[in-house]
């Protein structure tokens, strides 16, 4: 059964989510990948104001393809998240509660997620055409010069994700593999 979640993701909701939960997200999220994260991170370091409110925000690590006439967005699947590892802890400390990507995160990110309360969701990598159907609106809110890497505000409806790492540090990449391998032993 999928858990329906309305964004923004509050810290209370974060606490209820467990690694392995399938969720459908509805509401507003922001896109950001390597270049946008670096800019936000530099502003944080310099103590300057950010171009958007980070509190309770969810960031989707994605660089979509250009949209055609009449489309809300082009193909829009997740990019590999570890490239954001250097920047995520600073954003989580400012109140970011959700991240959507694919692939592993490092210990610093997981530590920050546990300390401040944040969730790392996985969206299916390589399913950009399918995922784009759940994105109803998209507009650039910062760093337009970055093109596909600009920060977009997305309105999504029933956007499918799985909790990969929860705010307690449980990790589906470890537990999922283990559960499958143990099921093989049982068969024998």
């Amino acid at each position, binding site marked *: 059964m999928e858990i329906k979640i309305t964004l923004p993701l509050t810290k209370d909701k974060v606490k209820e989510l467990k690694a392995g939960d399938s969720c459908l997200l509805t509401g507003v999220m922001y896109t950001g990948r390597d270049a946008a994260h670096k800019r936000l991170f530099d502003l944080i370091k310099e103590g300057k104001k950010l171009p958007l409110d980070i509190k309770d925000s969810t960031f989707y690590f994605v660089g979509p393809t250009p949209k055609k006439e009449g489309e809300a967005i082009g193909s829009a699947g997740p990019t590999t998240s570890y490239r954001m590892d250097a920047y995520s802890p600073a954003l989580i400390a400012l109140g970011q509660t959700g991240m959507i990507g694919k692939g592993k995160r490092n210990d610093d990110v997981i530590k920050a997620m546990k300390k401040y309360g944040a969730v790392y969701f*996985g969206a299916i990598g*390589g399913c950009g055409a*399918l995922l784009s159907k759940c994105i109803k609106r998209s507009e650039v809110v910062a760093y337009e010069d970055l093109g596909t890497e600009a920060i977009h505000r997305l309105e999504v409806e029933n956007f499918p994700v799985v909790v990969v790492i929860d705010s307690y540090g449980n990790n589906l990449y470890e537990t999922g593999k283990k559960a499958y391998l143990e099921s093989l032993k049982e068969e024998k």
Partner: protein
Amino acid sequence: MRELSAEIIANTVKRLCIEANLRLPKDIKACIENSFDTEPWAGAKDILGKIIENYTIAENELKPICQDTGAACVFVKIGQDVHINGNLTDAINEGVRQGYKEGFLRKSIVNDPIERINTGDNTPAMIYYDIVEGDKVEITLAPKGFGSENMSRIKMLKPSDSVEGVIDFVVDTVMKAGSNPCPPIVVGVGIGGTFDKCAYLAKKALLREAQSENPVPYYAELERTLLNKINALGIGPQGFGGKTTALAVNIETMPTHIAGLPVAVNINCHVTRHVKEVI
């Protein structure tokens, strides 16, 4: 000598760029559908079903299969009896430029690895030329995503490491990659040659039909062994656990030096794109 205009080359490349990014090749589809039928783990089967749904939508609605429409890798076999009127490399880049623009594909190339300014048109293409017999030009377009490219590795093994060393390195590379390269993956393995030739072999291996075998029985057997070992790791689709970690392992080899045993592993994702045309 046969004459061919650079314009024909550019138009072909343009068309292939668009086609490759909208339509997954038959051999990869067959592998995915086969895995869907045989995957024993429910969650994994569910993801494989979504992957099938995704490439069906892409094809029907003309939307790129994946948002990473890749670095445009272009493999060109030029017959030695054909003469191109115009600049061949420029023509290929022009084809990529037009294809990525008109196909609404993402431009993912930066001008310099350190300066990193987007070139805005996905050029330059990554071109591999090969001179062959005849008067034809064969162009293979293989857009390559970097989520999986980044998980690729090369190692100069010692001859004494032998085939066991090769197996360990390939399996270890896939294990370390884990969920990052969007499994299920296709694994291209190059064995032999020099450092650079070996990496090229691994990339070339990804062009071979996923359901084909290496013509040498020994290497065909090694492909099966590697696939079985990889699919016993439990990583599964997206790394959430399951049997289907890899769809195929393709090995390409060539002679090497008495002192070396180079091995390269080029990982590709389930969006392994390649389309070929002969002019």
